[in-house]
């Protein structure tokens, strides 16, 4: 059992920045609940990014605490109460910051990995 827990913790650390960006990006298209977010990320990434619940929910609660997203209880399409998250103004700013940071990072990575093409 301890090994399993360690796995979760590794994931959180590995994905921390990236997962936050993915969540914020997903919420830009409208309020969504946890399950919806995980499905959206999975679908949009062509089934490559599988978000662990053990990473997703801590991340959601963390973003909520930082007031980048705010929760709202709504009834879902199939008549079930669910906690929807919505991007706040601060969250939108954070998203653009994260995006530019990410593009810098990916440019830099590309430059290092493919030196000839720059």
């Amino acid at each position, binding site marked *: *059992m301890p090994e399993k827990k360690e796995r979760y913790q590794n994931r959180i650390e590995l994905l921390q920045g990236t997962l936050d960006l993915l969540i914020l990006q997903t919420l830009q298209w409208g309020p969504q609940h*946890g399950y919806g977010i995980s499905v959206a990320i999975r679908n949009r990434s062509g089934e490559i990014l599988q978000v662990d619940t*053990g990473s997703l*929910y801590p991340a*959601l*609660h963390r973003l909520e605490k930082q007031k980048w997203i705010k929760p709202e209880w709504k009834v879902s399409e199939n008549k079930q109460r669910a906690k929807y998250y919505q991007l706040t103004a601060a969250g939108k700013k954070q998203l653009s910051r994260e995006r530019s940071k990410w593009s810098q990072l990916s440019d830099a990575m590309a430059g290092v990995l493919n030196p000839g093409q720059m």
Partner: protein
Amino acid sequence: MIFWRRKTREAELDEELRSHLSMDAQTRIERGADRKEAERAARREFGNVGLVKEVTRDEWGRRWLGDLLDDARYGLRMLGKTPGFTAVAMLTLALGIGSNTAVFSLIDALLLRSLAVPAPGELVQIFFGPPGTKDPLSGPMFDRLRERQSAFTDLLAWMNAPMVLTEKGGARPITGAYATGSAFPALKLKARLGRLLSWHDDQPGSGSNEIAAVISEAFWLDHFGGDPGVLGQPITVDGGVATIVGVMPSSFNGITVDYAPQVVLPFAFDVALHGESSCRFRATCTWFHTMGRLKPGVSFAQAQANLATIAGDVLKDSLPSNYQRVDYLRNGMLWLTPGRTGNSPLGEIYGRELWTLQALVGLLMIICCANLASLELSRTLDRQHELVVRSALGAGRLRLVRQLVAESAILTFSGAAAGIVLSQWISALLVSYIEQSDFPVFLDLRPNAATFAVTIAIATLTVILTGVLPALHLTRVHTEEMLRSGAQRTVARKRHPLAASLLPVQVALSLLLASLALLFAISTGKLLHVDPGFRVKGITLFAVDFERRPEKGEARLDLYRTMLAALRHAPGVEAASMIAARPLGEGGMDESAGPVEGNGPETKHLFENVVGPEYFATAGTKVLAGREFSEFDRFGRTPVCILNQAAASFFFPRQSALGKHVRSTEPNTARDTCEVVAVVADAKYLSLREPAPPTIYYSYEQLPNFEWIGFITRSHDTSAAVAAFKNGLRRVAPDTPLLPPITMQRQLEDSIGKERLTAALSLFFGGLGLLLTSIGLYGLQNQRVARRTAEIGLRIALGAQPKDMLWFILREAAVVFAIGVPIGLALIFAASHFIGVELYQISPRDPRIYCAAVMTLLSAGFLASSIPARRATNVDPMVALRYE
């Protein structure tokens, strides 16, 4: 608030995750999966719900508080489930922490606490004599020093003096002090009410102006009912009248830590009473306890250097020209010590013993911790299954550790609270040992920041030792292995190395404590039974203060004679006489003297005492040759003296001292030479420890104006003697204050207060250590038997004999002792170096002590292990194996 919010959040999280699961399942059903199958798949995909909750909750922050409350609540429940363990642990902790707090609060009060004045670190004390001696200065010395010094903003002098307060209702003793006018300004002390003394109040010989007095807050509250109208009221002390001008703050109790003056007067008061003969002006009246406040920027070393340059001149100008100790004059003996804590005579006397005791209770605390840690370990081992289940349900390791630590924290801190309460009693007990009966000790032992800090530090350390370490060990659990194997196993797992190493440590420390206790106890027992050279039983000593009687000279002598006659004729009093320096009392008299006849050694330092007629018969000291002093050895007749055997054989070796003459070399003595009329047996003088010193006795009747004399009675019953004294005093000198009498037994016990203190407490702590170790051993063996019941059953079923099983269990105790005893012996050997000086007539390396301690420990250990061992031999193989 946090509570219900937390509850709501918890419920919300629960719902959030449940909705996730059901939505996932719903999706799968829509894709055509069977409902059950879909739910199972959703759950599988989701993972461990408990763990997801746990890591999500981590993000909430503030979580530790809620968790802590959970932990505390759960901890309390678990402790409530094992009341036996909880009671033993609480008691252990209360005793351990209580003892530590008590001893420390005494050390704090006597040695560590600063005077309650601003910037106490700037204060220094100034003494007269070679470094190490702590003699105060004289008035003239103080004045000359104050004129010349340049290192201090000011100097102050303070003299504690018991006083007599006279009121309408009668006279009663109070604690008083004289202070120079500079004292309160130099201490920078502010008044609680009114004002404090200043230089204007202390102009010696300023005439018949009203003299100011300040009183302590306690005295103000007790005696004047806290009435602000006390300012301006007259107060009659020692026959003089002063006016109360202010009340000192309650935190300030003079500059001596164990003496709290109720009234502080300027020295001018003493001058007004005694004129030129006041102690203020006498060069030999060295009672001026002097302190100084360092100028800003002047270091202690610079002040010492400044003092060294002026000391010679100061002493030359202030000591009489015929001063004996020329070496003091030549070397300019004035020296400094830090004055932050004030003056602490009791601290000087008991410092070493108190630190010894602190070391002992520290050891005891380690034993307590070791004991609790192993109890905790064994208790938690029994709970291992629970831990495994909780870990499987998603509890992180840190969470489990915290749970276990929370339990020990609850235990420890409630134990510490009980300990603080207990420490008040232990402190009172300690003080009663320290207290000399003729001198009330004032000590402020209320718990303060320092003692609380120490208690909390000890408690925290205890939590770490008894909670954190075992918890870290125990939570290294192999879940699956444990779950699979279940609770019972035929062959038990090896015990924890931590638990295994704790017991030998306990054994070693208990051995150390037990040996020290034996050493101190035997040493003190020897002291108590040493023959002091006088009777102890039935002897009562009375101090008397006729100073304020109008009778002087021969009339004063008559007063004493009448009083003595009254005592002798009182019912129940077998004999009575007079004595100046009480045997084993605080102060003694000494002089140098030499024989007149013969060509023996010239002079010798002698102890001196002044006694009345038939003193030796009263005190029970044998007269070896010659006669006692009688009523006829009066002033004007041949001066006579009596030598003890040590003095006689020194001055007049191999011959009779009777009829020989002894000459005193002290200046200004009327008794230049005296005829030896008797030789008496040696009697202890100042200390039971030291052999009786050479002593010379003078007859009281031949010393005119000798004031320091008291009465001694022998009676079957102390109360009869006390009643006789009271009656006599009422008849002979009605307005004389009654000073508390003291029995010789008490005097003797007081004189070895330190030894008795160390012995009594080390016995107590030693016993406690032994008890704790036995409990630890018992607990461990008990648990071992319980854990290995199946194995024992199997062995018995296979034909093992009861004695084999006994050995099987005792073997472990034997190993513990085999490791612990040598370590303990090595520790004692190392400690013996430090305690040797505290012992009387017993070597700290006496092998008999070691043997006794080891035997005691072994029998306690055997007793503790034999109960579980007996249980092992009674194991029914059928019952034991059925569980498997």
